[in-house]
């Protein structure tokens, strides 16, 4: 019984660690995407609208990495 409890407690710890490391990658990715958007817009202000659409697409794609980690974390905690 105690072993089972320990394992579920450690699973919660692992879920936290997974979320944290996942967020590092997504944060870096969105930061790089924003840098690219700023560079492009400051050079050519007239493409701002079009570039923002592609920025949103890239940000959503890199944010998905954090969400993969979230799925694993939710699975570890037993959310679904």
């Amino acid at each position, binding site marked *: 019984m105690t072993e089972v409890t320990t394992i579920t407690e450690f699973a919660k710890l692992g879920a936290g660690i997974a979320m944290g490391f996942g967020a590092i990658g997504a944060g870096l990715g969105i930061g790089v995407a924003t840098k690219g958007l700023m560079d492009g817009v400051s050079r050519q202000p007239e493409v701002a609208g079009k570039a923002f659409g592609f920025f*949103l*697409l890239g940000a*959503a*794609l890199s*944010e*998905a990495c954090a*969400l*993969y980690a*979230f*799925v694993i974390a*939710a699975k570890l905690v037993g*959310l*679904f």
Partner: protein
Amino acid sequence: MEHWLYSFNIAGHTFSVNLDTIITMWLAMAFLIVISLIVTRKAQMVPSRTQAACEKIMEFFWGVMDTMMPGKNRQHVPFVASLFLFILTANLMGQLPLRIIHLKHGELASPTNDINLTAALAILVLIYYITAGLKAKKGKFFIHEFSFQGIIMFLVELLEMFTRPLSLAIRLFANIFAGEVLVAICLGISAAFLPIPVMIFELIVAFIQATVFMMLTIAYVSSAAQTEEH
């Protein structure tokens, strides 16, 4: 977060379906079908207001297809457009106050918070782009050239046939599911005003995720179906 599981037996095998997902999915489908039936019945040369709006939507899809996939692309528009419209309707349904209708288990929310539905959509995309590639390139779709590089490329593409639907399904599912968890956590902190900005953010996410799904589908189909000029 829990689903209303319904099990039944067919020839000794037990099958389970998530009834709440099926109800909300049929609601989304019924909405789209009724709207399109109403709009397309009395089409006129001088369009009415609703017809003009729907023609604008179709022109949006044509524009996206022309930029992402130049050349012969009109036969892929129906699939891509119905994917986008269905996913958008399904995502936005999660923000409707459907949860006040109580079910036995689970709750009426966005149907895309169930990984079974998103996986089904992703497998549809897989079948569609393999079919499009086979139609366009015949046997050369699988094996480009019989050399070392050709075999390596074949193996990589075989791996992609597994990872592409997986990432498509998990991306859509996780975005919607994470949004619901976020709203639930904010409700736990303060039920008064805290969930409102998160819900507005979820509206934006619904559009972005539908767009991302459509863009990736177009990219996969165009990489499979288009023959490169030598």
